[in-house]
């Protein structure tokens, strides 16, 4: 895929994403990056709108189409990377949309609806993605493995600078970058890290970590963001304030302040459990691996819960032959759209549970702990 693909004819449906375009595993789940024993990934997202254009809540289809074409043109010509994938999301098959949501390349909201909307993804790393016509005209995101908010911010900031010369962003010296929803106005930045905190849950200290984050006006949510539970002991911490705080201050709050504290607390909790209740922890991790290697039906929540404990076992040396990267990849592969893409079949829920169990067993066949 080149960086300047010819735009598809206006009414043609988007063909399915070629499998080779998106690798089986997303880079942010490779297990690389700083503090990757606790920090799964870091994400920075900025919201931008075009000066003089109505926001999406007031835009009819013609204006949405105009916005989409303008943004696509500017995105394709601002030098974002050698290879990029552009999708007219409203013409993309449902399964592919879900696949992109599962890879955290776009939001659930962006996947819904048939009004003109687009998505750009940098390849092959999938670090950078840009949603066009989501809640705001442009939402630029960088997603990285481990604790790498600074790198993610640097990439988004660079993309923003490149577009700045080509698009007049809606801005007020008083209110900052103007966004559709005033909760994003100001710097328009949302920074978040995804943390794996099984030991803090087991020691009942998870609420302390949540409180500490909330005391700093940060939000704590589950794996799939707003409204989602912390399945698999995965928590997202993100800022909720965007007005009156600079990007550097937000970065400092999360990357240099709260996250290192939580990482230390999780490591300490892991050590404490291993010192005091080693057999209990071994039992928990081995049972999880046993379930994953023996189950004939697996619901996504159960798969994530068991994979979370298996990941902990791999990190603590309880399951020495199990690699953390394998578990991370499985966390993505057991999601419904990925499962169907891997097996090449459209499946109902029951069939997916069977296929999920089959896939996990096959991948963990050699993991003898």
């Amino acid at each position: 895929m080149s960086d300047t693909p010819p735009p598809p004819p206006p009414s043609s449906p988007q063909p399915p994403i070629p499998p080779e375009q998106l690798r089986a595993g997303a880079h942010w789940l490779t297990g690389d990056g700083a503090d990757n024993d606790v920090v799964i990934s870091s994400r920075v997202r900025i919201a931008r709108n075009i000066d003089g254009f109505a926001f999406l809540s007031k835009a009819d289809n013609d204006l949405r189409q105009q916005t989409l074409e303008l943004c696509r043109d500017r995105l394709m010509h601002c030098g974002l990377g050698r290879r990029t994938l552009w999708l007219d999301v409203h013409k993309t098959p449902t399964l592919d949309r879900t696949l992109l949501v599962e890879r955290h390349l776009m939001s659930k909201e962006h996947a819904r609806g048939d009004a003109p909307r687009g998505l750009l993804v940098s390849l092959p790393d999938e670090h950078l993605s840009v949603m066009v016509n989501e809640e705001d005209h442009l939402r630029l995101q960088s997603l990285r493995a481990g604790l790498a908010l600074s790198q993610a911010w640097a990439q988004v900031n660079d993309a923003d600078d490149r577009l700045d010369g080509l698009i007049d962003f809606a801005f007020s010296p008083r209110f900052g970058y103007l966004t559709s929803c005033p909760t994003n106005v100001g710097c328009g930045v949302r920074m978040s890290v995804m943390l794996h905190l099984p030991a803090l849950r087991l020691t009942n200290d998870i609420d302390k970590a949540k409180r500490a984050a909330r005391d700093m006006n940060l939000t704590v949510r589950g794996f799939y963001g707003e409204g989602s539970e912390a399945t698999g002991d995965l928590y997202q911490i993100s800022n909720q304030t965007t007005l009156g705080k600079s990007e550097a201050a937000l970065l400092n709050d999360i990357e240099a302040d709260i996250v290192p504290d939580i990482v230390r607390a999780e490591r300490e909790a892991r050590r404490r459990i291993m010192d005091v209740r080693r057999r209990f922890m071994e039992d928990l991790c081995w049972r999880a691996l046993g379930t994953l290697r023996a189950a004939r039906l697996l619901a996504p929540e159960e798969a994530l819960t068991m994979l979370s404990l298996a990941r902990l076992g791999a990190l603590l040396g309880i399951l020495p032959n199990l690699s953390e990267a394998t578990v991370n990849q499985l966390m993505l592969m057991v999601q419904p759209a990925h499962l169907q893409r891997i097996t090449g079949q459209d499946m109902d829920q029951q069939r997916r549970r069977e296929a999920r169990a089959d896939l996990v067993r096959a991948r963990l066949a050699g993991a003898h702990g």
Partner: protein
Amino acid sequence: MKCDRCDNEATIHELIVAQGQHVEAHLCERCARRAKGRQPTSGDAVSPADDVPTASDTPISLSPSADASAHSAAAGADEPPHESGDVPIEHPGDGAGDGASDGATEESSDEASIIAGARTTCPGCKLTFAQFRHQGQMGCPACYAAFAELLAPLLARAHEGGTWHVGKKPARYRGAESAPAAGAAPVIATTRRLSMLRASLAEAISNEQYELAARLRDELRALLSARSSPEPDARSDAPPRGDLA
């Protein structure tokens, strides 16, 4: 339910139907009393504008003209010049909003501002403030200028007291800062300091920390009197033009 103007529990709920629009007001006893009873006093040089809508109710001598200016088309003298033209509030219809747009010459009660404010219409997309409150989303970039003063307390609540942008700006706004013109940098620095002081003052007042508020007010006055020239204009918020420049 929280008070529209502070963090207290709202105990007084009003539904006003004007111009075919339903306008809800939820106020605590203190804010409601202020809305009913406030009278204008003599002018004061310090005009913290929208950042301190409750100023006249405090032991600190802050003029209600500051509050009035918050709803006027031309903000107080301490406002950055680029903000002066940022408030193209329209009051269509029966002229009920005129009082709120007359600045320091007329009394501007909270009640009037709620009624007039809810009917304030964005000149760009015709969204009313009441519609915004209902749906939670702006219609276009010009809405922010149109609803600026009504938004300020809501934004402060949503952003932990933040009322002014700090951080990155588009390149076209960075010119003034990087311009080699003598004095440019100190003026920008003063603007930032003023913004911070206003935000801190508003917070101190809302927390009823009057001693701190008095100190901040004095500092604000000193800074304002020391400022000899207007800040460099950046760019006014223009209504949507339906096309790119």
